[in-house]
Structure formats: structure tokens, C-alpha cells
């Protein structure tokens, strides 16, 4: 494949697509679990992702200014994750829980409202301007470059991308252990597959819901931090603009299936980047102006054409 497409394809289209895909995948895990277990589309998910990144930035800045040494974003993310999870649980307790037995629309509206509240809150506290996360240019890793170059397959990949891809991989492993080996994880999958069945088997749904927010919050903050590691800056609208591709990923992978969401995320990320590859002739296949539309189009096509094949759960 590499010989056919050349390294340009790998370096400029495939790897960036993979990186974006990893971020979508992590975000989509939370969305798919919420959808599977609480049975609603949580529109505030992207904002939690964003506020998690802002918490991380704040921790980094405080440590740097207070203690005088910089810490890695992945370290600073630990307290940020705790905060984001508490936020999720707080929001659930006061804004979502009152609607547990009400029609879905109410809680979706409530999550719509929370989306607005959280974003505006961040904008009023941290301000609407961009914040620098890491200044400078991330050059490709020289070791990898020269090493792969000796095979005539030069890979250009900055360190941040290694962190993102490796980090996503580690989280995947941890998550698969959690979901397949632990009691709570099995419970989550059971509830997600069939809430009626789970109720009969005596699973405490409220505990499962709390676990969902914890896992979802963890993955959301990880996605947020990876996103700002890649962008190297923070911005208050980044949560919303990731939201729809993440929904698309969750739908693609099948609602309620975390591993499906991962595959969906990677597919959406790659599809977006590859849609502008000059497959035919010299110009990009699709005008980059339409790039955002790729995820939406995939999502709609999937919803319509393969509603039951790839998907599981409550679609019809």
C-alpha cells in the first residue's frame, strides 16, 4: 500500500487521520455508553471534554507558576479528570436525574441546556480567547525519521502523536479489562445491552450510571487533553465542534458498544482526512470546505442504510 500511495499519503493523510480518529474514538466511548445505559444523546459531552482540557491547563499553569517546574499534560490531567467526573455526577444528580422516567426529549433538552451553560461558564471564567497550551512547533521525531528512512520508508511523526496514539491504546486496554473482567464492567455491558434484563437480574442501575459517568468522564478528559496536545492551544468552542463527529463515531460503531465507538472514531477521523487526498488527478477529491460534512454524511448514510447490521441496541 505504501508503495502505491507513497509516504506522503502515510505521513500527511493517514497518520493525521489516525490521530484525529483516536481523539474522536475516546470521546465517542463516553457518548456511546451514555446512550446505551442512560438512553439519551448527551449533548453536553463535548463541553465536558473541553472543560477537562481547561482544568488540565489550569493545573499545569498553577504548578508552573507556583512550584516553578513544568509538568507533563498527562500528569496534570489526573486532577482534571477527578474534577470533570465530579462535574458529570453533579450535573447528573441535579439536571438529568429528575428526568429519569420522563420522555427522552426532556433530558436531551436538559443536556442541550447544560452544553450552553458549561460553555458560557468557561467563557466567562477563562475568557473566550485562545490559550496557549504548548508553544512552538512539534517537529517530527528525528530518531524515527532516520530509522525508518534507512528502510526507505520515512515516517514523519512528532512526539505528541506518539503520546496520543499510545495513550489511546493504553486506555483501550484498560477499558477492555474493565468491561470484560470486572463485575461493574459486566454490569455496564448488561445494562447497555438490555436494561430490562439487567433490572431482572438485580443490577443496581444507579451504581452502573455512576460508573458510566466515571468512565465517560475519564475518556472525555483524555480526549480533550489529547486534542489540545495536538492543537497546542485551548479554545472554548472545541467541544462542540468535536461533538457531531463523535456522535457519528458512536452511531457508526453501534450505540452502546464502546469498542464499536473506537472503530467508528478511527473510521471517521481517517475518512475526514482522506476525503481531501487527491485520489483522482491533482486536486483534492473533495473541496476541503466540505471536509466537515464527511462525518455527517457517513453518519446519515449509516443511520439509513445499515441501521440494524452494524448497530445494536435501541434504534427502531
Amino acid at each position, binding site marked *: 500500500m505504501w508503495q502505491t500511495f507513497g509516504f506522503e499519503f502515510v505521513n500527511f493523510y493517514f497518520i493525521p487521520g489516525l490521530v484525529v480518529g483516536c481523539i474522536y474514538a475516546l470521546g465517542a466511548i463516553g457518548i456511546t455508553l451514555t*446512550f446505551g445505559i442512560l438512553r*439519551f*444523546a448527551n449533548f453536553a459531552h463535548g463541553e465536558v471534554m473541553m472543560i477537562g482540557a481547561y482544568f488540565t491547563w489550569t493545573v499545569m499553569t498553577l504548578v508552573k507558576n507556583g512550584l516553578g517546574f513544568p509538568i507533563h499534560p498527562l500528569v496534570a490531567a489526573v486532577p482534571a479528570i477527578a474534577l470533570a467526573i465530579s462535574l458529570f455526577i453533579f450535573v447528573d444528580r441535579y*439536571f438529568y436525574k*429528575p*428526568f429519569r422516567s*420522563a420522555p*427522552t*426529549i*426532556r433530558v*436531551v*433538552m*436538559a443536556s*442541550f*441546556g*447544560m452544553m*450552553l*451553560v458549561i*460553555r*458560557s*461558564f468557561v*467563557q*466567562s471564567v477563562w*475568557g*473566550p480567547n485562545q490559550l496557549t497550551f504548548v508553544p512552538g512547533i512539534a517537529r517530527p521525531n528525528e530518531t524515527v525519521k532516520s530509522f525508518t528512512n534507512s528502510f526507505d520508508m520515512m515516517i514523519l511523526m512528532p512526539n505528541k502523536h506518539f503520546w496520543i496514539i499510545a495513550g489511546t491504546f493504553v486506555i483501550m486496554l484498560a477499558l477492555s479489562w474493565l468491561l470484560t473482567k470486572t463485575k461493574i464492567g459486566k454490569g455496564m455491558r448488561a445494562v447497555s445491552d438490555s436494561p430490562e434484563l439487567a433490572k431482572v437480574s438485580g443490577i443496581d442501575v444507579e451504581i452502573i450510571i455512576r460508573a458510566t459517568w466515571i468512565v465517560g468522564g475519564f475518556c472525555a478528559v483524555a480526549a480533550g487533553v489529547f486534542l489540545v496536545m495536538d492543537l497546542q492551544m485551548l479554545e472554548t468552542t472545541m467541544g462542540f465542534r468535536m461533538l*457531531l463527529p463523535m*456522535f*457519528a463515531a458512536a*452511531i457508526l460503531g453501534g450505540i452502546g458498544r464502546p469498542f464499536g465507538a473506537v472503530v467508528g472514531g478511527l473510521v471517521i477521523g481517517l475518512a475526514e482526512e482522506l476525503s481531501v487526498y487527491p485520489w483522482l488527478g491533482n486536486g483534492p477529491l473533495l*473541496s476541503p*470546505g*466540505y471536509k*466537515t*460534512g464527511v*462525518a*455527517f*454524511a457517513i*453518519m*446519515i448514510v449509516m*443511520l*439509513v442504510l445499515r*441501521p440494524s447490521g452494524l448497530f445494536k441496541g*435501541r*434504534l*427502531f
Partner: protein
Amino acid sequence: MDILIGYSLYGISLLTVGGIYAILALGLNIQWGYAGLFNAGIAGFAAVGAYTFALLSTAPNPYHYGGLGLPLPFAILSAMVLSGCIAFLIGLVCIRLRSDYLAIATIGIAEIIKLFLKNENDLTNGPRGINKIPRPWEHLSEERFYTSAPMSWISDSAGWDSFFDQLPNWWWQPFFCGTILVLVYIIYRLLETAQRSPWGRMMTAIRENEGAAHAAGKHVTRRRIEAFVIGAMVMGLAGAMLSQHLKLIDPTNTFDPSKMTFLVWVMLVAGGSGNNKGAIFGAFLVWVIWSASEIFINSGLHLFGELVSNMDISLLKTRAGYLRMVVIGLLLQYILQKYPDGIIPESRPTSKGN
């Protein structure tokens, strides 16, 4: 005196925009309140209506195709029809999807519509948008209208010129506002009739229990598409009226989902979905809060700054816009929990003959 005119003109503008939102909310009420279709792509249908109207009614110009200069009522009707056609196509494909899925799909479609409007520069002037959109009543004082039939039959251009000159420059505002309110009233009447009719009964039945409606011989899919299309046509009308009010439309900022889609949902849910009065009431209430809160928050901050002179409130002032959004978001949560069925909840009309 000026102050009084000013305040009334502002009141008229509140009614105008509130009325446009009321039309949107009524359109959504057909889709959600009657048929239970979770359309989260309101901005897309409004954009289709607005662009159709703009392209057909503006004067020819070098920036984009269209500019056909057609009569306004024709352009408004076309806006409704095209919006309905697009809804029909979407309905054919997506109508079987339930609640959240339909919402996500329609958000995606609305974004694709906006991307199209943004990227097809030749047709739509791209992100720069279309300006000089004629506005009813006010357009009469435009040269291209009073020099052509039927206005030219009544008087020549000099006559019209002097006639319009002697009017106060805001003469058309009450008329435009009145037109919109009349439209709201007409749609309200039509929808009330429809809701109380066998059609409304059937729609409610489909919403309440699809299986039973099916077994009672109702063509559920076709009826859903019907409600979706009628709602979209009403939204297209609202889009056309909005473009007349703004006189410039662009794909990105005008049809921002948080102000076009989300706000309309807030209006309908707060007012009472399924109830046309609720939809209208919610639209005016939320718009007045949305618009007037800026005056109150700004002057409140001003007052606060005068009282607490040793505090720097400039930061608060620059962030007032965001604080406003927080307040409105929390207000929505309050209404959702306090009035689960909206402020004016749905009441099924009892059948005729009883």
C-alpha cells in the same frame, strides 16, 4: 416624544422577531408537538427558505446567480415549497429513525445544507452572504418597485418619491410587524383547525401509539413525512420572513444552530409543546427575555459600577454576554423541571359534536 416613539419601535421590533420565532416554533410544533418528530435541523430549513426567498426576490447583482427580482409573494411561496421539497427528500430517507437518532441526523443534514450554502460561491455568494433583500412595505419605496407595475399605474416616480419622503422613515415598521403577526395568526388558526380535526386526531394517535395507529389503518410513515414537510414549509416561511427582517443573510452566523435551532426548542418546550398557544407564547417570552436581558444586564452592571466605584467591573462587562447565556441556560433547566409540560401544556380538544 422621541423616547416614546423609540420605545414603541423597539417594542415593534420585539414583536417582529418574536413573531418570526413564533412561526418557527409553530412549524416545530407540527413536527414535534403533533407528530413527535425530533427535528434538530431547524436552522437548515430556515436557511433554505431564507436563501430561496433572497435569490428569487433580490435585484440582479454581480455577486451571485439569482437576483431574479421576482414579486415577493411568489418568492415567499417558493421558499415554502422548496423547504418542503427538501424536507420530503429527508423524510423519505430519515423519517423511520426514532427520536435522538432523527435529531442527530437532522443536525447533520442542517450542517450539510449550511456547508453547501457556504461553498457554492457562484450561487450563494458563499460566506459573504446575500444583501439588499427586499422587505415588504419598505420595498415599495425602492425605485425598482415603484417604477414598475402595478405601482407605476398609480403615480409616476416623482409622485411616489415625494409621497414616501413625507412619511416618517419608520413608516413601514408597523406594517411589516403587522404582516408577520397576521401570518402568525393565520398559521395559528390553520393549525388549530387542523389539530381539532380528524387530521390532528390521527397525528396524535400516531405519536401516542404507532402500532395501534398502524393497526387502525393509518399509513404511519406517509403521515410522518406529511407532518415533517408541513412543518418544514412553515419553517421555510419563517426563514423567508427572517431574511426580510435582516436584509442580509449569510450561512455561518445567521443560521447558527444555538440561536436558530436550540432557541426555538427552548421556546416550544417552555411554552408547551403540542399547544399552538404555548408555542407562540414561548416564542415571544423567550425572545423578549433574550433581547431585553441585554439592556437590563448592561444597565444593571452600569448601575453596579456607579454604586461600587472602587471595583473594576470592566471584566464583568466584557463577559456579560457569556453570563447572559449561563443565566438563560439555567432558566431553561428551571422551566424544564418546574413545568415539565410547558407553561401552557397540551390539552387535547374534546371532539366536535360533544
